[in-house]
């Protein structure tokens, strides 16, 4: 398995290189530049703008900018400089990383913990009332965009006089040290993004799980298991679900880049200190090294996620062999 993983990791490098070129071309081909917004400032003459461009290296030809950036990554692990924040990109992204992982992790956990059992339940009780209700809610969850769910939840909380609308903490708890009260405050805020962002994912995983399980339940080996006289619980859990869950593991791997670009609008609406809005802002402001680093990170996560999914599959399903 280790040689396999190593090989896959090596293949990632040229892919990432190509992705970085594609991102850079797309970003630099956009009209305008980072310094455009300065033009309307009374303090800024065209000469001053040109000077800033020179400081930022934006006066060089595009290929030089690109080579310098890639050179920095390869030789020093330096992902460039954020024009907007005036800090290294790694630091800007790093500031947002923890909360991004927390929100995404809790959301994923929520989705899976709710969706998988519900999927199993609706498959077993196919066409029953539970199936009908869960599927109905699931369809709505899939159809309604996450930011709209977020807006509705915010409106709901406001109409009940709540103050936990947006952000991850109440103003009083931002930047204070950890305490039980602070944790409670976090949880009080966290449920809105988790519900808003997680609903669509939950619905989709539930539908997948249901469909997979229904397929498997009709398979011969399930009938055999039942014929052996196993209890239904054991048939479902040990025989049917284990097979039915495999495609979901691949799906989980593919959803890793959503950490960065999956929930941009909902995160903006909810004022979350996460990476999604950073990507959005950097693309709009043409803060090119931040945007490129995040896009590169997203594609790296996609590939790593795929690899992890494959490895997990091999581990959970002995039928799959990689040599």
């Amino acid at each position, binding site marked *: 398995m280790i040689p396999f993983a190593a090989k896959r990791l090596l293949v990632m490098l040229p892919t990432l290189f190509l992705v970085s070129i594609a991102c850079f071309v797309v970003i630099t081909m956009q*009209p305008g530049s980072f310094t455009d917004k300065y033009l309307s400032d009374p303090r800024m003459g065209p000469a001053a703008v040109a000077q800033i461009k020179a400081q930022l290296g934006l006066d060089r030809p595009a290929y030089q900018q690109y080579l310098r950036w890639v050179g920095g990554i390869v030789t020093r692990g330096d992902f460039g400089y954020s024009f907007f924040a005036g800090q290294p990109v790694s630091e800007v992204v790093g500031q947002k990383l923890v909360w991004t992982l927390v929100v995404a992790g809790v959301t994923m956990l929520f989705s899976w913990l709710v969706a998988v059992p519900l999927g199993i339940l609706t498959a077993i009780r196919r066409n029953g009332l539970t199936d009908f209700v869960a599927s109905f809610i699931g369809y709505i969850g899939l159809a309604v965009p996450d930011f709209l769910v977020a807006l509705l939840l915010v409106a709901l909380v406001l109409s009940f006089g709540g103050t936990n609308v947006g952000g991850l903490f109440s103003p009083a708890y931002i930047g204070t040290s950890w305490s039980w009260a602070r944790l409670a405050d976090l949880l009080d805020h966290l449920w809105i993004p988790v519900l808003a962002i997680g609903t669509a994912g939950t619905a989709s995983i539930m539908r997948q799980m249901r469909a997979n399980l229904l397929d498997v339940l009709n398979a011969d080996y399930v009938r055999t298991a039942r014929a052996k006289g196993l209890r239904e619980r054991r048939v479902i859990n040990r025989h049917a679900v284990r097979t039915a869950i495999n495609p979901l593991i691949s799906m989980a791997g593919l959803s890793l880049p959503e950490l960065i670009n999956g929930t941009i609008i909902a995160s903006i609406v909810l004022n979350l200190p996460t990476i999604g809005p950073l990507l959005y802002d950097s693309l709009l402001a043409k803060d090119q090294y931040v945007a490129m680093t995040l896009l590169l990170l997203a594609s790296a996560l996609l590939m790593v996620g795929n690899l992890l999914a494959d490895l997990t599959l091999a581990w959970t399903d002995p039928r799959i062999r990689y040599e």
Partner: protein
Amino acid sequence: MKTFRRASFLLVLALALAGVAAAQQKVVNTADLGLQPGQRGGTITLPLNDAPPSFFYYAVIDTNIDLLANQMFDTLVEFNLDTYKLEPGLATSWDVSADGTVYTFHLRKGVTWSDGQPFTAADVVFTLDQVVSNPQVKAGDAAQFTFNVGGESKHATFEAVDPQTVKITLPVPSAAFLLNLRSFYIVPKHKLEQYSVEGGGQPADLNKAWPTNGPLTDVVGTGPYVLASYTPGQKVVLERNPDYWKVDQNGTQLPYADELDYLVVKGTQAQTAQFLAGNLDELNISGSQFPDFKSREVAGAPFKVASSPALFGSPPHLAFNFDAKDPALASVFSQVAFRRAMEYAVDRQRVIDDVYNGLAQIPGTPTAPADGTFYVDTTSQMHMFDLEKAKAGLDALGIKDTDGNGVRNLPDGGKDLEFTLTYSADSQTDTDIATILQNDFGQVGVKVDLQGIQGSSLFSTALGGDFQSIIVAFGNQPDPELRKPIWQPGGSLYYWHRATQPANPGGQPTFDAMAPWEKTIYDIFDQGSKLADQAKRVQLYGQWQRLNAENDPVIMIAKPQNIAAVYDRIGNFIYSLGVIPGYNPVPLYYVSK
């Protein structure tokens, strides 16, 4: 030598009261401002649109650090909160030589930086000479101190005569010099010298001073508040400066509130939610949000919605590209008669009523009606909405519908008069205005195709000349001199007629391309910046506004009001656009118990 001893009675009063603090105090009489003496204590929470990229005001052009710097630093002179007239700040008085070139500033005594170091003339000279005049410093403003004397570029000189006196010598008199000084926050030499050229650094090093991830204790100011803590991307906490030099008329030291919290909340929607939840004490809103907020206020919400005529703020205008790439359109657009005819089809009142919910007024051309000094009422010269006059005007130009398809044709059997109208699609206001214009222009047989673009690229599109007609807004300032690059033909922001711009950057504008009225306006601005006589300047700029109203370089649409929602628990609220250096009402806000 002409002497201005400003506010000397205040000084006398201040000295009488100066028992506790050593600093020479400035008394802010709340009664003069229609306010009341406040109470000390409490925390006020205000919004920031984004995280500040640096804590050094001069290192970045960014509205968020502008807001914070306004609370942490002071300027030599500042605006009166009521009249927008200049009054003493860190300088208690100043003398101007008879020829208007030598300014001597007498500094406030006993003022200290928040780390206890004394504030002296060396700090002022350092700020103006090493920081503001350094062209490599991003938010510096070297151009303000550079003057063109007979084709040669000359720089002002700064001299610390003694620790309490600064002398500034200009090569030529400058009308807006004093006014410009209100936007230069004085920063501490002892903390920043190491980054300056004087201190052995590279010219661009100052841009690296006081990063947001550096030690906050380095950020010392003389202002009402001191930086206390920063949670990256989420919250900035400022604490009151116990040594601040302003007091109210009862001798209570300002600022009233103990703590200012700035929450980073991006976007209108999220800010509205945070305000309604009570997590923000104040929010600047737009006319389109007004009905929602006002109905909540009427329904008993514990906040008020306040609106007032605005001096600052950006009135939108409609511009036609005199140099449009299509030569047939360019020739029509550069005719005054055409722009006048189109102005008759601009329904300003409908924009004011429908788009701004009545919270806007007929604009000046382009001075703000709230500007008590320079505004001239040109309404009678403007061409107010009248579709019949618009039609007649187009007819007179020979722009008639010759092929009977409902759209007028360009003169001499030309093609349909059809052009694009570019606007910022991010702005609901601009989108609504564009739709109204499209509709009314259609009524007079002019076909408009709407082209909404990203707000952030609106200026670059305009400056690049890549449009046919466009809706843009430039902010008003208290002196036309400050907006010279926009309104003087040939200026770097005079985007609707780019043919007037200098052939070589920094050179003479292209006078051949200017219409006679444009040349007149050019001369007005040229004269206006050299004159020291304020009455003559007022007269000159009045002539400019009338020329604008008649010749429509651009068509001013409406001047929106300031609107803010503020919770009842905050006393003495005065609207501030947020980014006006030298105008800071926040120390007067108090939290009612």
